[in-house]
């Protein structure tokens, strides 16, 4: 085995996945080539060092950012402010009616959408809207995450 051949199998050398015969060939080459032996040693040390590093933790608000981004891409497009206010008021009324009236169906639970609701001068929040069986044009709104509340 020459240097080029050794370097072709270097990853298998450090993983220990060579066949016994190939492993013996590689060891023979290492004994005669300090460059390749040094590279194998460095690769082993590097892989051990890298594998030991802790996984960096994401920012605590990453989940909320994902929800907001998904809500913005969901079926309910983030509306203009006055429309949001109207939509929130309407949804709240429907939600109240829903609480008094019909329970949610499993189908409605499966088709919830996350929306980003902006209330003028009151902040915004993420909510889940489930279709209303009685009024397909409206929905039941559950607040999920308070985004800001000045």
């Amino acid at each position, binding site marked *: 085995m020459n240097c080029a051949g050794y370097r*072709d199998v270097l990853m298998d050398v450090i993983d220990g996945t060579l066949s016994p015969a190939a492993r013996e060939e590689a060891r023979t080459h290492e004994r005669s080539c300090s460059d390749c032996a040094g590279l194998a040693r460095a690769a082993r*040390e*590097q*892989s051990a060092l890298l594998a030991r590093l802790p996984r960096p933790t994401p920012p605590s608000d990453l989940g909320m950012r994902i929800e907001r*981004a998904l809500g913005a891409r969901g079926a309910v497009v983030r509306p203009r402010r006055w429309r949001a206010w109207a939509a929130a008021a309407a949804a709240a009324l429907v939600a109240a009616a829903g609480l008094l009236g019909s329970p949610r169906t499993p189908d409605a639970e499966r088709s919830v959408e996350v929306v980003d609701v902006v209330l003028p001068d009151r902040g915004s929040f993420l909510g889940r809207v489930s279709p209303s069986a009685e009024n397909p044009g409206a929905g039941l709104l559950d607040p999920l995450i308070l985004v800001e509340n000045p």
Partner: protein
Amino acid sequence: MSEGPEPREAPFDAAAEEALVRRAQAGDRDAFRSLYQAYQDRVFATAYRIAGDRETAADLAQEVFVKVFEELPGFRFGSRFSTWLYRVAANHAINKASETARHARLNERVAREKPSVAPAAPAARDRFADERVQAALGGLSVKLRVVTVLRYLEGLSYEEIAEALDLSVGTVKSRLFLAHATLKEALNDLVKDVGP
């Protein structure tokens, strides 16, 4: 299959993962939420190691999950969802890194980064090692950096990396070899300082 670094523990077994993905494909947003909550740390970590800073990584992770959400209906289980997710994450991070060429300025940024926003580490010794490694990774080309991150920091097998990046296993190994050769100088002192 290859040996080498221990694979990081998966949040779901294959059957549970597939069941969640199928529910998410049917429009179950709670199922999709369970998926991103389980995988956001991996996606963030991959993006961070490739892009080099936390804010960019958070943006990338957010964009990856939106992309995955949009493309999920077309996912046909040709691979595990997690492998596909790594594919989306790695490609997105590669594109971003190529667009902005942020890695060229990585060393400066890592040196300036405050300890309070550095990756969580239990001890200063680990944080020091983490920053040095991050700087060394920044010295690799994006192609070499990605395979190094997926192999050693995320614990993927050669076969999974090949599938995620649409490469042959031989190409994955040759890129890792080049990465080791390139990192030899950059990490030599660190290995001596903190041990392998």
